[in-house]
C-alpha cells in the first residue's frame, strides 16, 4: 500500500503556500495536493511534483514558480515529476475546496455523485452564485482539462465545476 500522505518538511510549508496554480490562482500547490514530497537534503530542497492531468500546461509553470520561490528563500532545489500514485481530486485539501467554491468553481463531489451529475444529468451540483442545486451540465469538458461547464437553472448563470478524478 502506497501512502497518499505527502511528506513535507514543516519548514517549507510557508514557502510552498506562496506558490499557486496559474489557472486557479486561489489554490496553492499544497491546496491542490500536487506536492507529494518536499524535503531538505544536503541543503537542497527535493520536491516530487505530480501532474493533475497529463497534458496540464500549468505543470511547467508550477515547476518554474517553485524553483523561483525557493531561490528567493536561498534554497537550491531539484524538482522531479512523478506519475505514481496518480493524482486524484481526493488530494484537494478541505481548505482548497472551500477556496475553490468562494472563487466561483464548484468543488468536486464524490465519485458516485459526480457520475450522476455528469452522466445522468442529476441536479446536485451547487451553483456558486446562488447556492441552488437546480443546475445542469452544459459540457463535461470545460475551460481547462479539470473542469466541466454547468448552468444554474434558477439564476441562469454559467459556472465551472471541478470534475472528480479518481
Amino acid at each position: 500500500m502506497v501512502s497518499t500522505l505527502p511528506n513535507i518538511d514543516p519548514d517549507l510549508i510557508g514557502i510552498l503556500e506562496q506558490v499557486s496554480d496559474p489557472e486557479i490562482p486561489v489554490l496553492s500547490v499544497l491546496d491542490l495536493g500536487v506536492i507529494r514530497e518536499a524535503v531538505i537534503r544536503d541543503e537542497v530542497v527535493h520536491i516530487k511534483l505530480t501532474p493533475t492531468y497529463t497534458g496540464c500546461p500549468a505543470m511547467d509553470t508550477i515547476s518554474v514558480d517553485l524553483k523561483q520561490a525557493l531561490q528567493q528563500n536561498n534554497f537550491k532545489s531539484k524538482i522531479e515529476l512523478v506519475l505514481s500514485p496518480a493524482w486524484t481530486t481526493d488530494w484537494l485539501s478541505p481548505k482548497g475546496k472551500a477556496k475553490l467554491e468562494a472563487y466561483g468553481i464548484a468543488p468536486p463531489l464524490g465519485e458516485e455523485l459526480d457520475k450522476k451529475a455528469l452522466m445522468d444529468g442529476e441536479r446536485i451540483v451547487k451553483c456558486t452564485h446562488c447556492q441552488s442545486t437546480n443546475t445542469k451540465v452544459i459540457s463535461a469538458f470545460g475551460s481547462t482539462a479539470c473542469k466541466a461547464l454547468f448552468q444554474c437553472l434558477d439564476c441562469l448563470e454559467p459556472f465551472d465545476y471541478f470534475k472528480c478524478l479518481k
Partner: protein
Amino acid sequence: MDQNLYNYLLMLGDNSMILGHRLSELCGHGPSLETDIALTNISLDLFGQVRNIFQYAAKLNDQESSEDSIAFLRNERQHYNCILVEQPNTDFAHVILRQYLFDQFQLLQLNFLLQSKDEQLKAIAAKSIKETKYHIRFSSEWCKRLGQGTEISHNKITTALELLYPFCNEFFETTEVEKEMMERGIGPNLEELRVQYFDNVTTLLNEAGLSIPQTPFRVSGGKHGRHSEHLGYILAEFQYMQKTYPNMQW
C-alpha cells in the same frame, strides 16, 4: 538499449500523438463551442500521454534522443501508429466515430497496462486511464446521439462507419515487437483484446441503431511504418517549425 521496448513505446505514443494532432486541427473549428472545447481538451490529454511515453523512451535511449526529437524529427516510415488515427476530420460524424473506435481500444489496452511488468508504463497507464474514461464517455454518447438523431446524422455516421470500421482490425495484428512485449508481461495479448473490443463495439453500435458493416478489413501496415497518404501531410505541418529552425526553443 532495450530496442524492442523503445519501439513499443513509439508505437503506443504515435497513436496518441497523431490523433492528438488531428483533434488539434479542430481548435476553433468545432461545430459548437462545447464540442470544440471537448475535442481540444481530449487532444491536450493525448499530448500529455505522449509526453510521458516519449520522455520514458528518451530515458531508455540514454538521452541520445529527447521527447522533442522523437516527436518532431522522425519521417513517415519511422512512425508506427495505426492507420485509423491519421484519417481526416471529414465531418463531425467521422471525428466522433474515429474517436470512439480508438477510445475503446485505448481503454482496453491501458486496462492491461495497469498490470504491466514495466513499472513506468504501469504508472503512465494509471494516470492516462482516468482521462480515457472521460474521452470514451464523450465519444460513445455522441455516437448514440448521432445514430439515433435525425436521418441526416444517422446517414452521416453510417458513412463514417463504412469508411472507418475496416481499419479497426489493425489494432490487433500482433507485430514481432508486440509479441515479445506480451511474452515479457509488458504488453497485452492482442488476440484477447480483439474479442472484447469487437464485443463492446458491437454493443455500442447496436445501441446507436447502427449495423456493423460487412466490408472486409482494409489494408494495414501502420505499425510497420507503412501509412496512408494522410500521414505525410500531418507531419509536414506538425514538424514544420523544427525542420525550418532546427533545435529552436519556444
